[in-house]
């Protein structure tokens, strides 16, 4: 194709109606405390992995809720399952089990 000096941008909107959220439903079934997250960011701030890479459990959870699965699996693999965030989460999200559930349901 000739180069006209412009290109089409990909739509950045989260298209809630089009997104398939079936994996999210499966994750909730495996680990119901997923629902309790209030996106406070405590987990991200205390996470050793998150302090050196762009890994964020909070962001991963928010993305999953909207059905955004891009990059989620690679992110879930970065968690060391150390459990630090679980000790700090104010809502009692079982974060380690959640990460395992994500790994189970998202390829």
């Amino acid at each position, binding site marked *: 194709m000739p180069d006209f000096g412009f290109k089409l941008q990909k739509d950045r*909107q*989260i298209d*809630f*109606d089009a997104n398939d959220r079936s994996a999210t439903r499966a994750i909730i079934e495996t680990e119901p405390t997923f*629902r*309790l997250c209030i996106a406070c960011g405590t987990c991200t701030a205390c996470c050793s992995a998150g302090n050196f890479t762009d890994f964020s459990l909070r*962001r991963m959870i928010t*993305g999953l809720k*909207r059905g955004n699965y891009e990059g989620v699996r690679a992110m879930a693999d970065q968690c060391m399952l150390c459990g630090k965030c679980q000790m700090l989460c104010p809502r009692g999200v079982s974060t380690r089990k959640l990460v395992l559930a994500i790994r189970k349901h998202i390829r």
Partner: protein
Amino acid sequence: MIGGGIAGMESSAHLAAMDYEVTLLEKDSRLGGKLLKWERLFPTMRLGSEVLAFLNQGVEKHVAVHCNTEITEIHRKAAAFHIHTATGRTYEADAVLVTTGYDLFDARKKEEYGYGIYENVITSAELEAMFAEGKPLHTADGRIPKRMGFIHCVGSRDEKVGNVYCSKVCCVTAVKQAIEVKEKHPETDIYCFYMDLRMYGMHFEAMYKQAQEKYGINFIRGRLSEACENIDHSVLLKAEDTLSGRPLKMSVDLLVLMVGFIPSEGTKAVGKMLGLEFGVNRFFKTCDQHTLTNVSNVPGVFFAGACTAPKTITNSITDARAAAATIATYLEGKAISARTIENQK
């Protein structure tokens, strides 16, 4: 007492119990104010009618109640207030308590949300009315909604409509109503769009957690920018999902707008008749925000309830009792009623 809502009823009951002669003037045909409209109350899910019955015990047989009473003029003659009504009656009083409450924000003013334009956009008050009717929840064409949206802060915290204050009850009301929908229709998915969730009350946070844990109600942090109608009459929402940092679009079958408080027409009218001061938010201005919370700028005129600021029922009842004590000390000429505070705010 001008206004027979929660605040007017509870102040009247306490003053009557202290043997004062109390006359309660209400413009509607019944006492109760907004409480008549809310079926179940946060945070207990108790029936509104139970609270009304409780308040009535103090009013019935103790207070002279005059409903359907429209006040036309108020004059001060020596120490007494003369209150004239549309029916030509005049009531005399040594003190006046103003409990004229609030009105709901007119959602049509927030045109971009489509209320009054799209058939599946309703207000929180209309949802309450559906609950009270006891009929199944339905869209305009009679279907049970598969997905619903609740929009927080409609007509509150919004300079564009001229209301910069928080209405205080609508966050928890959205959670309460969402739970009620889920109890009746578990298969309906619910999304609440909020800027901040203000779950300040003792049991509100627990309700919020229950909404997530037990009912699977979803919360998206982002303010609705606009709503449009899809061809099938569902409503397309556009907001930023601020936690993902991306714009989001979502269709809902029914959209509920959490309308805020504005000062009532009665508050404006009675305030004018009595020469009362209004604050920056157009509610009545109390003499001091910390201490003289029931006292007006006119000696002998006092306030209680939501005519001074958005309040919950608990707040309104407590405020009403405080007003009764303030009026009693004023009528008895007690020294504490002459207290002042430096730098009134």
